[in-house]
């Protein structure tokens, strides 16, 4: 009787100590609980010696089991508390286990209590005393149970609060940019689902971030991302390579402080502090600066201001293009252009002078020779007259050379006006211009199907005039002279040709054909200055095309030309 009473007391005392510890885990409470537990164990042992009846033994057996369960559960809690590290990520796991253990402690303790009470009832055979004690016990039990439930609910609330705060903390850590952090998930309740969804979201966010980071690292142009305080958040690999800086002396630094304050550039300050606050986008901002590490550079900056990324209030993205070399090339080009312009001016002055001054004396020679021949012939011996005629014809030839040379030099300087041109019409116009060369001759001209093309109308007409004039000249001894103008399409290119059945030429000299003043025939046989084909070549080349010829002595010649990529 006394033993069971003691056991009952010890059990209740231990329950209070347990709740005490769970509410406020202190070393003292833990020691007291352990002592009470040990006392209860001794009581249970002596009880098993005392109560040997079948019913009693069974009850004791149950009590013993509950005791062991309580002991092990509570020891587990104590163990967890001992292990508890300050690291946040473990909190939730411990709380999960702890809440399970606490539930087990409650359950076991309740069972033990129950069994001991039953044993107590059995042991008191004295009915009245037993009933009285029973009532007291029931009251105590109800009070104890209610107390346990209250404690339990307080405890559960505390755990939920801790888990929610851990969840918030996790989200905060991730939000600050630590994409590797994961909220610990155990269990299957709403909070766990929320944590799981958050983790999935972070996973996706991390993929996006990795994608954008790989873009940053892949671009050839140096890229730099700054936060709202103009501190470096991230830079591309190319940035390190280009500006010869190390990551550890870059990230987190104020941009102006980078590389021993090399970046403290007034124009950059203007962009970052004056322009960008008003405009979120700015392109082709030119900055010239002399860097200690890489020398004088001219850079074009493209700036973008982005709100709320990478856990920052504001990010400024600067893409840097080094245009130093381009500028140098441009300056070189400009210099060459000026030189060329000067050379062209000189050439123009030269041809102008030729045009004026070379022709005037020729006119004198021709004029006075003519006057002598026309008005003084009766006083001149026939030989003098013949010489004067030779002076005349030579001077006239020189006049033609000067004129042709001027025309040729004009071609290079004349602006081209490209247009859609119908070659067949040009051929007919050219043929009409050469009417005088056809007089008294039997000439057959055939014009094939000539596709329209892109080119300068006047210049292309000149090409046909020269080629047809050539054909007419070298067919002078043919009756009939046959001239054909046509077009073949070869390798996707329209190739025009002018063919004649005239004197032709030896293919060994084909290389001389298009040179200025180059002639393949004696002037007694065929007159000319040797500029016509040079002009043809120059016009064709200016159109981006090619010109070539095929011929055989006495069997005629064919002149081909294409207009390069610009024909349609």
């Amino acid at each position, binding site marked *: 009787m006394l033993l069971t009473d003691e056991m009952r007391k010890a059990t209740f005392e231990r329950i209070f100590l347990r709740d005490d510890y769970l509410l406020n885990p202190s070393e003292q409470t833990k020691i007291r609980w352990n002592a009470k537990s040990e006392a209860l164990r001794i009581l249970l042992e002596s009880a098993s010696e005392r109560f040997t009846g079948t019913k009693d033994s069974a009850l004791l057996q149950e009590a013993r089991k509950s005791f062991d369960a309580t002991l092990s559960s509570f020891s587990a809690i104590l163990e967890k508390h001992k292990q508890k590290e300050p690291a946040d990520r473990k909190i939730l796991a411990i709380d999960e286990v702890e809440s399970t253990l606490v539930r087990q402690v409650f359950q076991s303790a309740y069972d033990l209590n129950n069994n001991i009470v039953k044993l107590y009832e059995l042991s008191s055979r004295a009915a009245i005393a037993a009933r009285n004690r029973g009532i007291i016990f029931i009251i105590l039990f109800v009070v104890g149970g209610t107390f346990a439930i209250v404690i339990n609910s307080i405890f559960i609330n505390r755990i939920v609060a801790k888990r929610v705060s851990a969840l918030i903390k996790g989200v905060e850590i991730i939000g600050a940019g630590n994409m590797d952090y994961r909220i610990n998930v155990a269990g299957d309740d709403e909070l766990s689902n929320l944590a799981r969804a958050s983790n999935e979201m972070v996973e996706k966010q991390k993929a996006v971030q990795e994608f954008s980071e790989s873009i940053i690292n892949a671009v050839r142009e140096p890229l730099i991302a700054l936060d709202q305080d103009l501190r470096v958040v991230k830079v591309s690999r190319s940035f390190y390579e280009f500006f010869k800086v190390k990551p550890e002396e870059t990230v987190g630094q104020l941009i102006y402080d980078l590389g021993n304050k090399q970046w403290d550039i007034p124009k950059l300050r203007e962009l970052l502090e004056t322009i960008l606050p008003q405009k979120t986008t700015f392109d082709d901002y030119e900055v010239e600066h002399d860097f200690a590490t890489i020398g004088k550079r001219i850079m074009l900056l493209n700036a973008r201001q982005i709100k709320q990324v990478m856990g920052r209030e504001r990010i400024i993205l600067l893409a840097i293009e080094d245009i130093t070399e381009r500028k140098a090339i441009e300056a070189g080009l400009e210099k060459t252009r000026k030189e060329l312009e000067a050379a062209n001016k000189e050439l123009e002055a030269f041809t*102008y002078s030729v*045009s004026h001054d070379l*022709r*005037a*004396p020729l*006119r*004198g020679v021709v004029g006075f020779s*003519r006057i002598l021949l026309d008005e003084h012939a009766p006083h001149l011996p026939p030989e003098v007259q013949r010489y004067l005629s030779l002076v005349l014809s030579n001077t006239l030839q020189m006049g033609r050379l000067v004129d042709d040379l001027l025309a040729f030099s004009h071609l290079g300087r004349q602006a081209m006006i490209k247009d859609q041109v119908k070659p067949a019409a040009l051929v007919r116009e050219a043929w009409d211009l050469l009417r005088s060369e056809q007089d008294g001759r039997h000439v057959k001209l055939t014009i094939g199907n000539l596709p329209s093309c892109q080119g300068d109308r006047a210049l292309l007409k000149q090409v046909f005039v020269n080629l047809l004039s050539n054909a007419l000249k070298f067919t002078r001894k043919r009756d009939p002279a046959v001239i054909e103008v046509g077009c073949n399409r070869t390798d996707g290119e329209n190739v025009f040709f002018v063919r004649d059945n005239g004197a032709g030429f030896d293919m060994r000299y084909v290389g001389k054909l298009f040179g200025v003043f180059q002639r393949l025939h004696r002037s007694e046989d065929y007159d000319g200055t040797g500029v016509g084909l040079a002009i043809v070549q120059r016009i064709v080349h200016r159109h981006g095309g090619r010109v070539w010829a095929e011929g055989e002595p006495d069997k005629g010649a064919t002149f081909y030309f294409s207009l390069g990529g610009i024909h349609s």
Partner: protein
Amino acid sequence: MNINTVEILLVEDNPSDVELTLHELKKHNLANRIHVVRDGEEALDFLFCRGAYQGRDANIPPKVILLDLKLPKVDGLEVLRQIRRDERTRLLPVVIMTSSREERDVVESYKLGINSYIVKPVDFDQFSEAVRQIGCYWLLLNQPPTL
């Protein structure tokens, strides 16, 4: 020749061209009405009755001025500019006779208000034909403005 009866003012520095021109005009009895000046400055002196031409009557202008472009001292275009700028001479018919067939010379001359542009041919037959036509046209056919 009386300086006040000049009908053609020839502004030409090349003596051969002067002689060939006069030779042709003589054939058509037009030579006695021509006066030759050898540079731009002399041309302006003649037209504005200055220097050697102080005594000339400005109220009797030539019927036509044959003007070369390339001239010593003051070039042809500048002479033309001054002719067109002055109230007394701005309506005078001016014919450019030059060796230059440069496009910019042609355009610039027309911009300054010339009445004709002739490129002197190297071939004498063509040259004399040109001189003959110019002489006949401007002296006989054309009606000059009354200044």
